[in-house]
């Protein structure tokens, strides 16, 4: 955190509150995650910290505009794609910022903890893993280190992000084969593959049709497969084209696609009072409904 504080000394009180409210049982995981951030940043750590500050400021500015108008700044996924996903420079800065936020934002750190603690243990030996938008690579690297995992696949809409993910996984010591495909999840996957475990984290609010995205995931989810969904509720970001106002909206999306929710968790922005109104990452584990299994 020294680099973050060097780039942004005013952030000290926030970070102090954040880490002081973390459970001491999570210290080992947090240290591992911090090591991964350091490994990915390498000798560009100060630049990554600067990109984190840039991203946080960008979020704050967009949030003020949203709260004033109750409307997101960008309306469509095509606009977002040209502004962000096809812009290699800003995409890299954004990814660097998101990477650091996995450690420093309660709602991101909490999601990582729930993925590791509640999702991975439910998977059986030899599971085939698919992640939508693996981005900074930290989540996929956790899976890559799991000896029970048989295969790693990632779909992403951004060529720049795919390059970044591949480089990140190499830096994090993932030496096994990883299939990364340019794939819009709102379109039917062109690769004929099925998966036992699928992670879609902070993607559904970016896509033109969340229903189509979930339907395509259900199509490639194996009969007893498990889906991990992370949807930010009452949180906005510059590339969001949709706001989830209630976790029930996400539940309805999943059940409409023939899924049954197995477990629900929240990782709050306000990790002291757990105030839903301040926003939270909504984490859902879901399987095919019993009567819809092929």
């Amino acid at each position: 955190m020294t680099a973050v504080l060097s780039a942004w000394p005013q952030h000290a009180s926030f970070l102090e509150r954040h880490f002081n409210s973390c459970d001491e049982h999570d210290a080992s995981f947090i240290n591992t995650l911090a090591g991964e951030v350091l490994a990915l940043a390498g000798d560009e750590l100060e630049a990554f910290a600067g990109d984190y500050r840039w991203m946080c400021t960008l979020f704050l500015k967009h949030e003020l505009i949203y709260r004033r108008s109750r409307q997101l700044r960008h309306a469509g996924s095509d606009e977002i794609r040209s502004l962000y996903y096809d812009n290699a420079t800003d995409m890299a800065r954004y990814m660097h910022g998101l990477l650091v936020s996995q450690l420093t934002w309660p709602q991101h750190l909490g999601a990582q903890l729930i993925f590791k603690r509640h999702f991975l243990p439910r998977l059986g030996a030899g599971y085939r893993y698919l992640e939508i938008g693996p981005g900074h690579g930290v989540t996929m690297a956790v899976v890559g280190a799991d000896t029970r995992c048989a295969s790693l696949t990632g779909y992403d809409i951004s060529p720049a992000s795919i390059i970044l993910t591949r480089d990140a996984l190499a830096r994090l010591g993932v030496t096994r084969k990883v299939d990364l495909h340019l794939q819009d999840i709102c379109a039917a996957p062109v690769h004929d593959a099925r998966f036992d475990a699928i992670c879609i984290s902070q993607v559904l609010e970016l896509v033109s049709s969340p229903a189509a995205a979930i339907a395509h995931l259900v199509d490639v989810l194996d009969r007893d497969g498990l889906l991990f969904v992370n949807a930010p509720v009452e949180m906005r970001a510059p590339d969001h084209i949709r706001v989830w106002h209630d976790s029930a909206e996400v539940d309805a999306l999943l059940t409409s696609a023939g899924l049954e929710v197995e477990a629900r968790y929240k990782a709050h922005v306000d990790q002291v009072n757990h105030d839903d109104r301040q926003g939270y990452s909504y984490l859902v584990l879901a399987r095919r409904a019993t009567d819809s299994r092929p």
Partner: protein
Amino acid sequence: MARVESLSKRAMDLDTFLRTVIDFLSEARPDLTARIAQLEVDEDMFEAGAVDSATFLDLCLALEARTGSIIDITELEPEQFSTIRGLFDVTVTA
């Protein structure tokens, strides 16, 4: 959200603005009243722990409602809006 009573922006000088901000933050963060009362106009409110992102956004909207101005921080660096004087400059004299 803490409430800020309506007041013409022409009637607000920096001292009034400072008191307005302190009153708002004291109501929004009663646990920090003593620290907030000591805020100075050139002190970074984030660094002082007086605001977090959520409180800052609430403060901006309350100040907009009171002054009738739009606080446009889109092109600004954080140092330009994270002090009370910085906010005063973009709120009242914008």
